[in-house]
């Protein structure tokens, strides 16, 4: 059974449609990335999944339970790292974890949670003296206290330096390897690509792209480019290509396979494909492509304002 099931979920604030009829599933043990620009609806989606907000329409199931109706039960099995939530500024990081242990049945030892989040050295520091990145780590420590089956991370590494970010990735990978289901939102494309097995890209409340990370990337923008030999007409190529000047570009779900096909086709004819480039898609390509489409669409309609 999928750990998270979302069916035709919608939520609006007044006339602003924050989440617009989205559906997706996250398999147990998968890492699912929810991407999108500010105001795309990521945080609202997480708040609906964690039962902080009531959907206008549609259903959410986390571990088969309704996060609002069965909140206490769901909370026992999930860890939540909110994008925005306060701490008691005069308590130390260690005291905060200790107090949260009282709220958490079968909690990890405080030292273990701090260690996991890389905060051991700051255990005796007051929360008000922690940096932004350190507060995110404390947030992570609290989310991990109850050894959750499902972990919701809303922009987990915002404000962290690259090293800290890599540490957190390591923790998330490790948890996922042991079967924890992770749903995270992020601005960092690299983060999503490093961690996630599945993704959904949101724009204006809708999921515009979704599915398996590798497949999605490959299907969208994998490409092979080369100089078209002067003796060859584009129509003769074994794969459909677009030609701009001398350069032919083949878009393909599997660019490696496409390159092999092209190369063996060329060698059979004694041709050389100069300047051959095989490019697997990166999430950034996909994102830029979508952003570009979005802008085109936006220019033709009236501009809607974004909201986080």
């Amino acid at each position, binding site marked *: 059974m999928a750990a998270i099931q979302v069916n035709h979920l919608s939520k609006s*604030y*007044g006339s602003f449609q924050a989440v617009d009829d989205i559906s997706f599933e996250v398999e147990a043990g998968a890492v699912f990335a929810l991407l999108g620009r500010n105001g795309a609806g990521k945080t609202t989606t997480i708040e609906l999944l*964690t039962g*902080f907000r009531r959907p206008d329409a549609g259903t959410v199931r986390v571990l088969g339970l309704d996060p609002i109706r069965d*909140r*206490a039960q769901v*909370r*026992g099995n999930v860890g*939540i790292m*909110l994008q*925005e*939530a*306060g*701490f*008691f500024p*005069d308590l130390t990081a260690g005291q905060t974890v200790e*107090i*949260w242990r*009282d*709220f*958490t*049945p079968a909690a990890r030892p405080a030292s273990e949670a701090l260690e996991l989040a890389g905060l051991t050295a700051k255990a005796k520091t007051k929360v008000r003296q922690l940096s932004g990145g350190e507060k995110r780590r404390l947030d992570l420590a*609290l989310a991990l206290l*109850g050894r959750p089956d499902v972990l919701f991370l809303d922009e987990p590494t915002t404000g962290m330096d690259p090293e800290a970010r890599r540490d957190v990735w390591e923790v998330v990978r490790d948890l996922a390897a042991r079967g924890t289901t992770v749903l995270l939102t992020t601005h960092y494309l690299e983060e999503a690509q490093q961690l996630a097995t599945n993704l959904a890209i949101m724009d204006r409340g809708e999921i515009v792209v979704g599915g398996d990370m590798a497949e999605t990337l490959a299907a969208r923008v994998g490409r092979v480019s080369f100089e078209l030999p002067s003796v060859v007409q584009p129509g003769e190529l074994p794969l459909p290509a677009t030609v701009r000047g001398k350069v032919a570009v083949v878009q393909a779900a599997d660019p490696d396979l496409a390159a092999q096909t092209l190369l063996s086709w060329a060698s059979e004819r004694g041709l050389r494909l100069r300047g051959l480039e095989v490019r697997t898609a990166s999430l950034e390509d996909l994102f830029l492509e979508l952003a570009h489409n979005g802008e085109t669409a936006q220019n033709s309609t009236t501009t809607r304002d974004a909201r986080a």
Partner: protein
Amino acid sequence: MSLTATYKLSARLFWRDKGMLPASVITPLGLAIGMPTLMRNVTAGGVTAAAQMFVGTLALILSGTAFLNITVALTMRRDQLLLKRLRATRLTDRQILLGEVASTATQTVIVMVISAVAVHLLADVPLPRDPVLFAVFAVAGAAVMATLGVAWTAAIPRGELAAPMTLPFFFLAGLASGAMGPIVDLLPSWLHPFFAALPTSAVVDVVRASYGPGTLGSDLAAAAVPALVLAVWAGVALLSIRRWFRWETRKS
């Protein structure tokens, strides 16, 4: 159990909140001990006047230590998204609020007992004849005032407005119960039933009976109407919380 956890957290935060202690403890305690002691020493019928005044000042403790304090604390925690964070844990909404109410009520009763002992030592005010009656209404009154404070947060848009929007009740409660002297007698008589219907006045009336002469029967009779008054206020508070309580600041 988790209710104990929220209770402990709330109590710990109460005594650590240096910004709030002057309003939540020092002022009510200072008035409840200082004013009767002053009366004892400056008026002719000293002890009677002191006792009279002391019982009235309990309304200040109820509205300062219970009502004002919980309103400010909860509104601040709501603004700082601390309530939201608490709700991200296993705790239920009920446990979070009940922990706050129970802890606030406990601190309030502690302050009431300290002041009763202090005026006994400093102003010769006798201890209550019926300590059980005193205790029952101190606890019930503190709990109802704390619950009303939780309800009142819904009317407050943001943290900085919590104190100014709550202080008038502090003065009203003190005025109505005679903590500021017999000013009530100077006000139009049609206002009297209104003052008597305040939850703080209900507690003060019964505590007054617990200090005065009487029997079990007369104590029960004195407690009947105030108990009803408190029950109605408790109902109003609970219904308002159910209907209007907000865990986060309003968006936009």
